[in-house]
């Protein structure tokens, strides 16, 4: 049955059937062929799979992200960061990376980050003399910070599935997010220095202050969201709602960037983006239910047990498998299909599920920038009119350091768990 599931799924995906429909159809076919549960249960799962207050954070974070894009907060942040990093060689690119990290602290998804920043930053980096493959690769990789630096919809979905606190996931993502940011900056500095890309300029306090003034309302956003979650008052879902409401307020009254019609369009767009993610989540949860009925997760536990795998060996195998899967599958699918299968084994081995969630997230980040199928590669290529091959060439060094980050995060659990009690 497991073999059938996997083969049928890959066949449908290769035929271009949307991920959610492919998963759902495989689930349906499994019931019809193997009679493991009733078809009414399939219908029931469509409802109860999404019946979760935790998941409600997703549309709100997506909405907040879209509002920020609409309010043109990305250029404000980039201007501010660039004003700070101008004096170094490669400063513009370092500023772009820092903007990606900051933007990551405001949005919950990686594609949104890459698209919003890429549109603004790539033309600027062109002007500063960076080759397109480098800037495309940088933005594709930098965009993935959107899911590691909290808030993150990946953490929300993982929290709902693994029954761990989303707040703890948000705490756990901080240091790995900083680590990846520093590594990306490292690559940027080395490449820019060696190839003498980009210019340098004197630091101008005036310019910096002017940029700070414009970016101020945008910078308040992460302060409100994360401050609200860590410091007291809100659950993650509520913090997401507050951030969306704050974004609406800033967009309407500070940046005056959209009228009523514009806001309505943002709501519709956000609802559609939410739907395409949650549709996958619902189908994947049903597949997980079938897999549980077929005894697959407990079979993995037994296999781990009979092979006497140590936690480090298990994690090594999982990482290698996810790297391969990540070349072909998108992040939401990896997260929702793979995580439920592995979690019982993770718990049996005594691995902290929060630590495992961070490892999974880093794998999803890498999956977004590895060919042939990497969402961020396509997005960057699309918005900047660059051939995908060029972006892929440029992203190679960044994938390299992210693999290094993966090794560090996997084998130094405290990077993930330092802020979690």
């Amino acid at each position: 049955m497991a073999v059938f599931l996997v083969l049928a799924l890959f066949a449908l995906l290769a035929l271009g059937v949307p991920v959610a429909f492919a998963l759902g159809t495989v689930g349906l076919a499994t019931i019809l062929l193997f009679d493991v549960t009733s078809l009414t249960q399939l219908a029931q799962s469509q409802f109860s799979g999404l019946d979760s207050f935790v998941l409600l954070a997703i549309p709100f974070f997506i909405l907040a992200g879209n509002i920020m894009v609409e309010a043109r907060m990305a250029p404000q942040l980039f201007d501010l960061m660039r004003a700070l990093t101008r004096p170094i060689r490669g400063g513009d690119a370092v500023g772009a990376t820092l903007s990606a990290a900051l933007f990551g602290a405001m949005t919950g998804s990686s594609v949104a980050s890459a698209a919003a920043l890429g549109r603004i930053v790539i033309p600027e980096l062109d002007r500063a003399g960076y080759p397109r493959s480098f800037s495309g690769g940088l933005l594709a990789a930098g965009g993935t910070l959107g899911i590691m630096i909290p808030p993150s919809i990946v953490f929300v979905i993982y929290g709902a599935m693994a029954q761990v606190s989303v707040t703890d996931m948000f705490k756990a993502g901080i240091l790995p997010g900083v680590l990846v940011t520093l590594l990306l900056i490292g690559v940027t500095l080395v490449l820019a220095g060696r190839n003498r890309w980009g210019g340098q300029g004197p630091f101008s306090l005036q310019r910096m202050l002017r940029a700070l003034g414009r970016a101020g309302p945008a910078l308040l956003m992460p302060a409100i969201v994360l401050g609200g979650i860590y410091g007291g008052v809100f659950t993650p879902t509520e913090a997401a709602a507050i951030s969306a409401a704050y974004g609406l307020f800033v967009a309407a009254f500070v940046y005056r960037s959209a009228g009523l019609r514009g806001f309505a369009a943002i709501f519709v767009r956000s609802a559609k983006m939410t739907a395409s993610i949650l549709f996958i989540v619902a189908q994947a949860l049903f597949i997980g239910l079938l897999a549980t009925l077929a005894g697959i997760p407990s079979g993995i536990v037994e296999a781990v047990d009979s092979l006497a795998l140590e936690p480090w060996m298990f994690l090594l195998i999982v990482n290698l498998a996810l790297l391969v899967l990540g070349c072909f599958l998108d992040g939401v699918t990896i997260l929702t299909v793979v995580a439920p299968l592995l979690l019982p084994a993770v718990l049996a081995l005594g691995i902290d599920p929060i630590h495992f969630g961070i490892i999974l997230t880093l794998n999803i980040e890498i999956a977004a920038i590895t060919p042939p199928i990497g969402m961020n590669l396509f997005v960057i290529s699309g918005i900047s009119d660059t051939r995908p091959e060029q972006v892929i060439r440029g992203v190679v060094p960044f994938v390299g350091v992210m693999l290094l980050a993966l090794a560090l995060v996997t084998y130094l659990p405290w990077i993930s768990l330092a802020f979690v009690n």
Partner: protein
Amino acid sequence: AEVKIRFPVEYNPDIAPGLANQEFIELIESRSNGEIEVEFYPAGSLYKGLDILQAVMRGDAEMATLVSVYWSAISPQISIFELPFAFPTHEAFYRAADDAAFMSQAFAEVEDKGALVIGTLVYDYLPVGNTERQLTMPADFSGLKLRALGRTNARTLELLGAEPVPINVTEVSGALERGVIDGLNTPADAFISYSWDETVKYVTDSPHYFAFYPWAVNKAWWEDLDEEHRAIIAEAVAEVTARHRERAKAEAGAAFEKMAAKGVKVHRLTQEQREAWVAATAVQWSEAEERFGTELLDKLRSFQQVE
């Protein structure tokens, strides 16, 4: 195996009711010489909450031990078990649970709709823990945000003066630490197993709510079983649930000791305080009487008498 039982539960297999489930499974698998096989799905790994109930009703699961509050979703009168101070002593609950006529009357609607209750697995009382102050009189509840277990319990906490807050169980730890909620009522050993005793400073041991799991089966499946298998299962349920009563009580006692050892201030309601809590929540009984009539409630009261 001739008979396969899909048996989903919401709680972890290593807490007291989970241990009882596992004993049951060992018993029936060995007594039936392997003719009955149980697929046990603990910790919500197959279904959670109302999904478990619907799965049993439909026959997508053959058996479940699901906390009684969910069954009131299809038969509101089951909420009488949740009325404040319905079972002032453990013995009061045992008397009710052992009265077959009363139980089948209480769960009649559930049976009509397709599920049969073949036993009751006790959990224990829900002591109230909070971070702010020792709860002795109802006035002490004023302004406290407490997580409740379903609507009947929420109403009880509200009548005592607290503010019931809806919050997901996975967010309780964080919410407690950050003051989104000030406390909750939950079985004593849950304070330990979720480490809530690290944030909660005060716990009041009060018998206002006795939690239990109706041991339910899909009725059509049950009636289709052959006589012998049915007898094996019914006997095993009776044995395990009876033996489990002492364990549940002991677990709760041990949990209170552990909490006290950790510096949590544990208070047991005095007679006078209990009467004040009963008075504050008495209106829930008349509300229930209006909804469900007096017959069941009089019966319920008859189990309360102290020998």
